[in-house]
């Protein structure tokens, strides 16, 4: 088995248009959630979200590209460019053949679907743009990354709702660890902040109207975000031989299924995934310094997740830091694990633990060190990143400081 390291990271999300800007916002505990600026917002009862701000597609993509790139693909391309440039890799010859891209998304080109259903149903048009299908398909982002950077190995898209990115990065990790690929571009993207996207979530009645306050006793639901996070996972020997800057190591991965309920989380399913990641990384609970929580800010998730962490970590659960950065960037659904992995990279590389902001009242059912409101300095060796999806599909990554 080969060791796998991260040699590049990129992002665009509600906290910033780059990794540096995102790290700065996370260090400062800045909130990227605000009033939604989308069409027909007056017909929504949920009017807040973590939108990518100050973003003009014309500044980044020409007309032909925009005809093919849904907003979720645009975010992916911006994040992939930053990650691949940082890695310094150029994909040609045998390296191109042994490199691929696996990305997570839940809704894919949902904005494109929303706009075009509007055109045919609401506006009564009988014609849509010829590229709607290649624009809205869930694998559009992965395919455009593959085409733009000449990645000719294994490429595909993973859709497991809120765990999509973690599942995707887990597959990329396995491909490199098994020797099936030397480098993989991986992460995820989501752009669900359109009228239909938010309207659908409203129906479940789990959304907050004012803020995402994970682990706080007065939490009242999740807030949606949008954006992308993309990384370059690379064979350690390959990275080392070319003298690449290594951000951290991907040490382990585990996925489990609750096989129980389509929306309610299971403590056992989550606990098995956390324990599995520790086992896969060959570490013990006391090695874990930080956990980036799934931490959605719903009543059900946060107490279930804390119980699962306490169950697996035992007495060490009182010492570990666990924060939910969704309090700052919102829930990026299929892209969320990727943006949250940035907080893990920051923790391992810079020794700074991103806070859970908006924390107001302790909840006895979430009695862990949730790094409330202010970032903290800490020297840690291992960190976990949790994702637990609707449908009971869980994916946990274990990362190691290099």
């Amino acid at each position, binding site marked *: 088995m080969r060791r796998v390291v991260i040699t590049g990271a990129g992002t665009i999300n509600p906290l910033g248009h780059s990794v540096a800007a995102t790290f700065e916002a996370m260090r400062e505990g800045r909130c990227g959630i605000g009033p939604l600026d989308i069409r027909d917002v007056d017909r929504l009862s949920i009017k807040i979200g973590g939108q990518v701000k100050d973003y003009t597609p014309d500044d980044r993509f020409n007309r032909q590209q925009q005809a093919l790139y849904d907003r979720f693909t645009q975010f992916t391309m911006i994040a992939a460019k930053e990650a691949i440039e940082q890695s310094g890799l150029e994909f040609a010859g045998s390296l191109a053949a042994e490199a691929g891209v696996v990305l997570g998304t839940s809704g894919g080109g949902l904005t494109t679907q929303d706009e075009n259903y509007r055109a045919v149903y609401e506006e009564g048009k009988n014609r849509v743009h010829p590229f709607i299908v290649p624009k809205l398909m869930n694998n559009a982002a992965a395919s455009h990354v593959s085409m733009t950077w000449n990645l000719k190995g294994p490429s595909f898209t993973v859709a497991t709702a809120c765990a999509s990115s973690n599942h995707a990065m887990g597959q990329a990790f396995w491909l490199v660890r098994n020797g099936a690929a030397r480098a993989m571009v991986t992460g995820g993207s989501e752009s669900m902040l359109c009228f239909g996207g938010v309207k659908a979530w409203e129906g479940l*009645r*789990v959304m907050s109207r004012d803020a995402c306050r994970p682990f706080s006793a007065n939490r*009242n*639901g999740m807030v949606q975000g949008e954006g992308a996070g993309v990384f370059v996972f690379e064979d350690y020997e390959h990275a080392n031989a070319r003298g690449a800057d290594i951000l951290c190591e991907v040490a382990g991965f585990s996925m489990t299924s609750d096989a129980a309920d*389509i*929306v309610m989380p299971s403590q056992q399913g989550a606990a098995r995934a956390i324990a599995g990641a520790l086992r896969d990384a060959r570490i013990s609970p006391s090695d874990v310094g930080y956990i980036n929580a799934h931490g959605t800010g719903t*009543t059900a998730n946060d107490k279930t997740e804390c119980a699962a962490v306490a169950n697996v970590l035992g007495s060490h659960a009182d010492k570990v830091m666990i924060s939910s950065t969704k309090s700052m960037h919102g829930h990026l659904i299929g892209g969320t694990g990727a943006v949250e992995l940035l907080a893990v990279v920051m923790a391992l590389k810079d020794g700074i633990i991103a806070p859970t902001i908006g924390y107001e009242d302790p909840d006895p059912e979430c009695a862990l060190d949730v790094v409330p409101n202010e970032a903290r300095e800490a020297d840690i060796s291992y960190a976990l990143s949790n994702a637990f999806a609707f449908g009971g599909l869980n994916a946990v990554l274990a990362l190691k400081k290099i």
Partner: protein
Amino acid sequence: MVESVKDRVVRIVAEQALLEPADISMDQTLEELSIDSMALVEAIFAIEEEFDISVPFNANEPEKSSFDISSVATIVAAVETLVKEQSG
């Protein structure tokens, strides 16, 4: 005869509980009727559609809602209030 608000609410609750309306009694709780959180949000949706009203309810903080779900009777009363408030 026009179906009363109570009868219409009971019909919706019965559908979610997989029971006949006649088998529902007013003092029953949702728990006793085996109505879980998903069935509850479906019932609220059905009530909103049936009466063309908007029901303020967040599953994360049911106790903070003015929509009291502690029994069939309280739900009927809450719907009657909302229908009055939101009519016209």
